[in-house]
């Protein structure tokens, strides 16, 4: 119950999830913009994005020369659960939604 999702619980992947969860459902973020928001190298970013993609949390789409990333519904739910678990571990009151 109080275990943090190991897919999200790594600095780079946590920050990627935060950036993508800030967008409304159905929105995508381009690879260069994501890189700019996170200050990650291209190699580092793609490595962690692939890991999130394999877990079903993120969808990576390549259209021509543009690569975009989007949070899936299960990614959104996993992030909400991760945040709830963090709050529980830190002894904060758990809200009904986050």
């Amino acid at each position, binding site marked *: 119950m109080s275990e*943090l999702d190991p897919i999200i619980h790594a600095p780079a*992947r946590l920050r990627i999830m935060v950036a993508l969860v*800030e*967008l*409304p459902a159905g929105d*995508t973020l381009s690879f260069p913009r994501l890189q*700019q928001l996170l200050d990650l190298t291209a190699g580092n970013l793609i490595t962690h994005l692939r890991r999130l993609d394999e877990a079903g949390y993120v969808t990576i789409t390549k259209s021509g020369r543009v690569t975009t990333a989007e949070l899936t519904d299960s990614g959104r739910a996993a992030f909400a659960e991760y945040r709830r678990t963090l709050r529980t571990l830190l002894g904060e009151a758990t809200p009904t939604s986050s």
Partner: protein
Amino acid sequence: MADRNLDPAEAMALLEGQERRVRRALDPGEGFSYLMWGAAWMIGFGVIWWQVFGQDPYTGPGRLAAGLFAILLTAAAVLSGWRTQRALAGIGGESARRGRLYGLGWSAGLLALFAILAALGRVDAPAPVLGVLGVCGPLLVVGLMYIFGAACFGSRSSAALGVWLLVLAAVVGFTGPVVAAGLAALLGGGGFFVAAVLAGRGLR
């Protein structure tokens, strides 16, 4: 950044820090846009009012005042559009589609209004009619666009501003073209400044 283990407090600090950073970066600067529009509106309509004040009979503003108003509105549109574009760069999907349609609504609505004014001028409509429509038309189009913006993006300051501009559009025409221009400058421009304050206080 190295992929290392985090303790819960570190993870929460990282999460909240990144959240603040992303929110700042993606903020389209609603308050900045209201300030640009408020200044353009107040100066533009103010100069028009100053030109037509005391005219008897009313002949309307000169080309210089009308041209200045058009330049100010274009400058406000370009500046606020540039800021929005910079914040929303790289975002695709549903929000981008809505944003494109919203932008189209602004330019198509104002162009249609200017075309109607030109058409009325072509059939020699009386100057006071052009004067009233020249004030109430922009109030109507811009008011509607802010209400559409509130519907699309959920901004409460935008909804409040839209309703205020529509109230002015419905009322100021009855005061005649001279007083209407003054009221549009003062109460219309003032409305943008109030909306900027509301947006700054987090009423989004």
